[in-house]
């Protein structure tokens, strides 16, 4: 029970929804935020799922409760400050405290510098960078009351190296990476730790969306040859890294980057 008694808020948490093979087909997977939610609950934490997708989010919370966990859903547009204030307040009123924030909400946009419309650029920067800032800003007062906390920001290997195919995404993820360090320095003395996780190619709903066109055309996954481990990551493998950073086991880890990519950027 590595998160016993802890309360967590996970943005992008609706991906905890476990599809029904009868209606959704066999082809569903958990997202990163969702996989973290299931793992957190298994380890004794209360989980508040924040997401735009109310339908999946509410169902996911119910599924978690059915499995014996303490879980709630709150509507959260991670780019909206008022929503964040509401979500944090909801978490503390439902569960009495806030110990962990996981910024996992995200979308992707495929486009280079010349062919990215400004509104798409702004949207990517909002969901990856501004959202992380807003979540951190409003979680900190609650964590301060607990005399500590852990913020885990889901960045990407694309936030360490450039991805020319999704330049706005890459930039947003890079912002999240360095924002994490700045926040880490600022709040270290208050025992609030801030770290970033950098998944490589992971099999999630978002990633499947990104590769859908290629898959439909029968083109083999161009990402696989780049991975020394020779396969995609499962969302659960990312979630274990999030768990480590969320728990007290990483009590001296702050401002760090946890790369979970099967060796892609080590080469």
């Amino acid at each position: 029970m590595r998160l016993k008694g802890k309360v967590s808020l996970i943005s992008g948490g609706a991906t905890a929804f476990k599809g029904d093979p009868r209606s959704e087909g066999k082809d569903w997977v958990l997202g990163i935020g969702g996989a973290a939610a299931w793992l957190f609950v298994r380890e004794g934490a209360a989980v508040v799922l924040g997401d735009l997708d109310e339908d999946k989010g509410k169902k996911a919370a119910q599924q978690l409760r059915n499995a014996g966990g303490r879980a709630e859903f709150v509507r959260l547009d991670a780019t909206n400050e008022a929503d964040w204030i509401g979500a944090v307040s909801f978490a503390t009123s439902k569960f009495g405290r806030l110990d962990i924030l996981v910024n996992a909400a995200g979308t992707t946009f495929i486009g280079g510098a010349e062919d990215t419309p400004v509104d798409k650029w702004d949207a990517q920067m909002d969901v990856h960078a501004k959202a992380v800032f807003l979540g951190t800003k409003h979680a900190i007062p609650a964590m301060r009351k607990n005399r500590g906390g852990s913020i885990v920001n889901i960045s990407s290997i694309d936030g360490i190296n450039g991805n020319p195919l999704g330049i706005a995404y890459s930039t947003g993820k890079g912002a999240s990476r360095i924002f994490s360090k700045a926040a880490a320095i600022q709040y270290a003395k208050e025992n609030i730790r801030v770290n970033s996780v950098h998944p490589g190619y992971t099999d999630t709903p978002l990633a499947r969306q990104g590769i859908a066109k290629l898959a439909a055309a029968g083109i083999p996954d161009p990402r696989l040859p780049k991975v020394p481990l020779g396969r995609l990551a499962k969302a659960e493998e990312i979630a274990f890294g999030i768990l480590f950073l969320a728990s007290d086991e990483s009590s001296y880890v702050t401002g760090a980057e946890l790369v979970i990519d099967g060796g892609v950027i080590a080469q």
Partner: protein
Amino acid sequence: MRLKGKVALITGAAAGIKGEVMGFGGASAWMFAREGAKVVLCDIKEDLARRSETQLREHGYDALFIPLDVRDEEQWKRAIAQTVKTYGKLNVLVNNAGQGYMNTVEQATLDIWNHEMDVHAKGTFLGTKHAIPEMRKVGGGSIVNISSIYGLVGSQTSAAYHAAKGAIRIFTKATAIQYAKDNIRANSIHPGFCITPMTHRLQEDPDKLALYTAKVPMARWGKPEEVADGILFLASDESSYITGSELVIDGGMTAQ
């Protein structure tokens, strides 16, 4: 039981006495054992290591001390052979043996240089070289190499230590790329200022201690258990998709 059924070999593991200041190796040994692993302690400090081995066994854990000078290839071969003979296999290797000298580049003698490079870098190379065939036999494994924040950045106080820790950092990535297809993972850990037998002398000087502590955003030194938690994570199957990476455990020092 996050290491259930696993066999782990840890170098520099002698300082593992409850009630005394432990090193990263000693703290890891206890944590690994608690999580279900059989632990092989390797070190040149025989007396201390035997006391640790005894204590672990008194707690009901399966522990074995094998004397090992990590600079010696023949000793590595024997240590790994004995591990496999006793426990049937090898799943995890923690290259932790190390020593630090405080000197600037100009003050560094060739003897100090050779010693540091051999213990840290050559020791890691030899351990890796001889662990890999055994890990391949069991379908995979995890190698955790203890580098340092001094393998990321420079400082006023060391020369060979930096070179050696930097060598470990990148050697780890080469290992990771080359043996990923064998499901053998290799990662480096980068502790910051931590309270261990190695930093003992530094801690006895309150002025020096304050100087170092002032550089840490968390405003304190780390405990060996805090680093051992990271080693455990990388040793276990939870980190199954993590290879070639660097886990920095430093209270925020290098983030600024």
